[in-house]
């Protein structure tokens, strides 16, 4: 059944062509394995959850022309106006939101005189009720109490803000209090004043997540009431009412007074989509290149196999005349293709590994999981078999008498 010897001896007489096809398959294998891995990586990144109730939130921001001395009072009036909009469940004002441009970061220390901070965290500032508006899941402890909340201006003007309490994300808790209950523990943020952890939320992503690891989830919420110039309003509503609520919110703020400039506003999910747009495009681009590579390689195999069938017409005729069945001719070309693809895959695996090594140094990518190698091999074997099928069937269909005389058609 196995016809390895005649195949090998034929191939050795077409070394250049055989080598080329092996090389092409190897290159394709190496690139496609890594491209698919990159695609999987990007898709994982796209699904990195924010921890917020994404589809129920809209954001609106506004700023005054120049400084507004009455901004705390005006902020309260704004909040009341926004809460009065039909369909709005709750409203909060925060200093930064995931996928936004604002980002406030500081070092978190475990001791007052610590030289270098333990970790770097993103600082979210919110009033009591803020975590509920954002849709964060409280795992333990409690929300802020009204008497803990500090005015944003007071916080900004103080060179030594004393923050009594903080709510931390689970990622922070697991990093700085491993195996311990974080509620009631003490952290140090800006200075030597202790801040007590009063609440634990499951997840809250930094404004600009990039690496999709724990570091992107190091967030701390502080009880600070922002003013409208230094924050943005987050409105929680039903998914279906978002567009109407957004328009009503913009109008409500516009009506408030003429000394305002409307800034950014939109649906939170749109903000998230914009943030990840480049990644989505990259996924499509990588997928397109993979498809193009596979098509080109398949055509290469078809082209070369057709040529070989044509060239070996006489041999096929002789074999058929000597009693070889059509199936045997078919298998001959299929086995030949299997050998070539296998060689290409073997070489391609080494290439895939080398490219991955290089990508790891350039793009902070993890190592290519071993699972990709058999998957890539399977894909190329199928591709090779599929591509060779038509030429091989044509070879098998040659009438022996014609073939003997060297007539391909």
């Amino acid at each position, binding site marked *: 059944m196995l016809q390895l010897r005649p195949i090998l001896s034929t191939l050795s007489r077409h070394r250049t062509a055989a080598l080329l*096809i092996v090389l092409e398959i190897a290159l394709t294998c190496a690139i496609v394995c890594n491209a698919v891995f990159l695609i999987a990586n990007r898709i994982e990144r796209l699904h990195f959850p924010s921890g917020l109730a994404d589809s129920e939130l809209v954001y609106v921001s506004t700023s005054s*022309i120049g400084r507004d001395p009455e901004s705390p009072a005006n902020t309260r009036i704004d909040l009341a106006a926004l809460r009065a909009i039909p369909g709005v469940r709750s409203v909060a004002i925060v200093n930064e939101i995931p996928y936004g441009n604002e980002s406030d970061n500081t070092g978190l220390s475990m001791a007052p005189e610590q030289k270098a901070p333990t970790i770097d965290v993103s600082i979210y500032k919110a009033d009591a009720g803020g975590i509920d508006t954002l849709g964060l899941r409280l795992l333990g402890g409690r929300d802020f109490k009204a008497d803990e909340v500090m005015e944003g201006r007071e916080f*900004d003007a103080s060179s030594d803000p004393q923050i009594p309490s903080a709510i931390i994300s689970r990622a922070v808790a697991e990093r700085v209090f491993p195996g311990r209950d974080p509620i009631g523990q003490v952290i140090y943020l*800006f200075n030597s004043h202790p801040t007590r952890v009063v609440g634990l939320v499951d997840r809250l992503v930094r404004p600009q997540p990039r690496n999709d690891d724990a570091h992107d989830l190091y967030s701390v919420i502080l009880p600070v009431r922002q003013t409208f110039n230094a924050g943005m309003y987050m409105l929680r509503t039903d998914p279906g009412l978002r567009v109407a609520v957004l328009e009503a919110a913009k109008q409500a703020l516009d009506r408030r007074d003429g000394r305002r400039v409307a800034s950014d506003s939109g649906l939170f999910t749109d903000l998230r989509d914009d943030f990840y747009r480049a990644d989505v495009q990259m996924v499509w681009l990588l997928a397109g290149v993979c498809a193009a*590579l596979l098509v080109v390689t398949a*055509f290469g195999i078809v082209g*070369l196999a057709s040529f070989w069938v044509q060239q070996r017409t006489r041999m096929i005729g002789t074999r058929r005349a000597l009693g070889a069945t059509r199936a045997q001719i078919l298998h001959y070309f299929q086995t030949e293709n299997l050998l070539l693809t296998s060689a290409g895959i073997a070489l391609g695996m080494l290439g895939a590994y080398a490219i991955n090594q290089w990508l790891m140094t350039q793009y902070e990518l993890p190592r290519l999981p071993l699972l990709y190698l058999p998957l890539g091999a399977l894909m190329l074997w199928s591709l090779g078999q599929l591509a060779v099928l038509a030429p091989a069937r044509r070879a098998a269909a040659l009438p022996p008498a014609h073939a003997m005389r060297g007539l391909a058609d």
Partner: protein
Amino acid sequence: MFLYYFDLALRSFRSARGLTALMVLTIAMGIGASMTTLTTFRALSGDPLPGRSDTVLRVELDAAERATFVPGKEPDNQLTRFDAEALLRDRHAFRQAAMSGGSASIEPAADAPGALKPFNSSARYTTADFFAMFDVPFRYGQGWTAADDADKAAVVVLSKELNEKVFGGANSVGRTLRLDNADYRVIGVLDAWQPVPYFFDLNVGRYRKTEGVFLPLALAAERHLGNNGNVTCWGDSPTPDFRVLEAPCSWLQYWVQVRTPSERQAFLDYLTQYSVQQHAAGRFQRDPNPRLHPVMEWLSVEHVVPSDVRLQLWLAFGFLAVCLVNTVGLLLAKCLRRAPEIGVRRALGASRRAVFAQFLVEAGTIGLAGGALGLVFAWFGVWVVHSGTQSGAQWVHMDATTLVTTFALAVAATLLAGLIPAWRACDVSPASQLKAS
């Protein structure tokens, strides 16, 4: 002879239409993909300051605390206000400017075109040399002077776009701009000016539109105009305002222009000396570690070209490599199939050289056709990138260089691909082929 080979090539294409089309298409796809990514890469990694990028330098001082020092790490790329003012005062370089990004609300006058509502504009707060150092073109008027910086004169320079928006593109020099509840006298309007990348302050956006208004830095700091960009503070005592002179916060970009390499060395020596002094005075905790980066080096230190764009470039050239290997294979198959024809030509007196040349011309012709089709693909690809959301995409355009490179690359690549088949073709022995047929 060339024309004859060309004619032979066309005949051979007609006799194998499918195979030829396949080869042209393959080459075109590879070339199209490569040229699209190459054009994008070139647009995003171009020289934003042609002719001057070697002599305009970014200044870095290592002013941060010792506790966070990491050996070998690039120092903080921004300066504190204290250091920036000290360097400006000393004026040791040919030109120097400190700057920061910001934003300000603008209330257009009642006669502004289209009853414009108040709006926020991006702003740049800087010092007098900014315009001369970066060779900024003026449409009307000019920039301010060092005396205006010192006096905190309420003057403003507008970008071309903002002048069009607020003053309808007229010569607005001498008019008043209402900005954050205060009046500023317009002293200059820029002509079209768009550095790509936005090299002097990458924190406000690596590829972004030129800021709308330019104001004296000292004035903006005094009036607390809104600041945009990165602010890094260190030390135990947090300061409520990073803009005050003594604040241990870096937030200013500092650039100098030198005329000669010796001036550059002299300026670096001066920075080292300054660092030593500050260290002795107790302000700097780290050892002197000043750096000077010319524009292009600065862009590479900051990895300004998005890593995805680099990745796409590699990917496209990988794809081109596969396309080429494929073309070599197909050309080889095509040429071996024509062994009898070669045998006849050789028997009739064609030399090996002639056969070799004939097959190279054939390969080159495929390259030309592939290049032409590749150009269409590249044009389409560039259009897709241009209308995409990659930051800086709006500055990706098809240009003459891309056009020429596309054809050159296509022909060179196919000639390379044609070498093996042509070599094999001229190696055909006439006798055996004639006998076989």
